[in-house]
């Protein structure tokens, strides 16, 4: 009796295996087929993103690279850019993560309106952002005037103004990224921590922050890149003084008018620095979790 019983099972299993293989094969070939209607625009998009970068690298006058890149102007601008962008991201983290945390709390009244307000700097032309900052923190601004009267200090035309401009444009990137991470995370871990005796601040520090670490890192990288590339708000609000407010993007823009070759080289340098930081951070942070 056992053999006729086991035989059909074996045959059945083989048939099932064949069926599975067949299904897998058709699925693969079906999925790998891309209709022309999608392939063509996709290729256009890819080229549009990559070609300008290739052009930058090809057209840069590499023979002048040594003189341009080690020139006082370039190094000064690069240094200022790296310092201000980094300080900006630190400020963005310190004020942006708590804001994201509050935004992500369930049942927050007016959350939708708040979220819309936070998105405004994302869609606002940076020049307008710079003007807006001027009206508040300029020497004659709403807050700037009393500040100037009391202390004799004014933001415009200082590196602090550069940082303020960068924080203004970069903050939404971090807030939205961290809020998304918080929404995607399981908030019940926080409840579990609370029942173990952890007060809210401890819960935030020991549970929430580590759990949304990747989201924070991604947001910080985006914010840093945005701060590094900031141009419009900076030139409007902080001005364009070598050594104090002339960041790399301003240096590139200026060079384009006088010496296009060096503008290309500076652009490649900025590109290289951004890519290097992205790659390094990715290795260091993104794969940790």
């Amino acid at each position, binding site marked *: 009796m056992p053999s006729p019983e086991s035989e059909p099972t074996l045959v059945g299993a083989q048939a099932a295996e064949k069926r599975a293989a067949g299904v897998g094969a058709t699925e693969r070939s079906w999925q790998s087929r891309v209709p022309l209607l999608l392939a063509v625009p996709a290729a256009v998009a890819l080229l549009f993103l990559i070609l300008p970068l290739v052009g930058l690298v090809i057209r840069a006058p590499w023979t002048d690279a040594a003189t341009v890149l080690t020139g006082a102007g370039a190094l000064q601008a690069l240094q200022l850019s790296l310092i201000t962008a980094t300080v900006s991201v630190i400020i963005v983290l310190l004020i942006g993560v708590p804001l994201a945390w509050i935004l992500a709390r369930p049942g927050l009244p007016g959350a939708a309106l708040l979220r819309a307000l936070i998105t405004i700097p994302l869609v606002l032309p940076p020049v307008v952002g710079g003007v807006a900052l001027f009206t508040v923190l300029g020497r004659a601004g709403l807050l700037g005037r009393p500040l100037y009267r009391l202390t004799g200090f004014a933001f415009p035309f200082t590196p602090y103004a550069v940082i303020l401009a960068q924080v203004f444009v970069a903050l939404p990137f971090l807030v939205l990224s961290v809020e998304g991470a918080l929404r995607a995370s399981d908030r*019940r871990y926080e*409840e*579990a921590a*609370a*029942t*173990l005796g952890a007060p*809210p601040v401890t819960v935030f520090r020991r549970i929430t922050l580590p759990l949304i670490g990747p989201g924070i890192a991604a947001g910080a990288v985006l914010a840093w890149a945005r701060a590094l590339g900031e141009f419009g708000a900076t030139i409007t609000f902080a001005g364009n003084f070598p050594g104090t407010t002339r960041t790399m993007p301003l240096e590139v823009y200026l060079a384009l008018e006088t010496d296009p070759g060096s503008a290309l080289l500076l652009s490649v340098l900025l590109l290289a620095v951004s890519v290097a930081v992205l790659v390094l951070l990715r290795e260091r942070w993104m794969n940790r979790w």
Partner: protein
Amino acid sequence: MVAELSADLGVHRGDFSLDLDLEIGTGEVVALLGPNGAGKSTALRALAGLLQITSGKITVGGQVVADAAAGIHRPPHERPLGVVFQDYLLFPHMTVLDNVAFGPLVSGSDKREARRRAALLLARVGIADLAQSKPPAISGGQAQRVALARALATEPRLLLLDEPLAALDAKTHLLVRTEVRRHLADFSGATLLVTHDPIDASVLADRLIVLEHGRVVQQGTPLQVARQPRTDYVARLVGLNLLAGSGCGHRVLLPGGGAVELAEPVSGDVYIAFRPAAVSLFVHRPDGSPRNVWAGRIATLEPHGEGVRVEVGEVPDRSSTILAEITPSAVGDLDLRPGSEIWVAVKASDIAVYPTD
């Protein structure tokens, strides 16, 4: 016995309302049993402080942790209790040891002391070797032990267990249940176990409280509840047929018009309970011995353990159904199938009767 937990909790939200009076003594284990949506989890969350009560008062270990009238709602971290969550919620970014050490650490122990305590507890639940593992790398049964050790690490006065065994496969379930029972016996505080599994509840708890639609419908020892169910839900859980009616001499009159013959005289409103195995089925009307014989119609047939559960409709009156348990061969002999007409017989001596109040 000193009441470690004394709660009169009311949670009213929209069209859901929960009212639960609860006292648990030192060392006592109480199971809160009920169907989905009965309010078990709401009760647990209210006790833990994760949800505000809208009326009533909760006292744990002698301290008032919530008093709706006085506006007192102590947050979870100020309540002397520990919770084992249904899916354990072990912190994925910490080692097993640090998970267990978390409670003592945030309540002020220094790091070494907290880790020493944690190691001790892990050894007690038999998983000392997993101390350095991360939670995603351990099995469900192991995670359950870690969760229990973590909840006990803060030396709570009240331990809340939310479906502690529901996430385990059948084999691990039995094993872990035995262990949990042992650890609960060692625990000096009060334990409230929330479950929908009557067997878990009976094995682990000294006393059962059955919750339906936010109200307590029955409470007592597991034996009392198993022998004398008071609602259809409880009757189904413990596997008994339950009918309610009013006693009149040797018979109980059912509200739908039927009657059940008893061996002893009764009076007043009563419940009648009998086992499905005590129900016999016949194709032709049986005669002879004094029993209850009714004509009905088969609703469903389902395998149950080694036998077959037959649900017979329109018995003893049009609005009731009765479960019978028969052997698979009897199903064939009687040619039973859904819709067929059948005679149902129950011996008077197999019927338990108890007052409704």
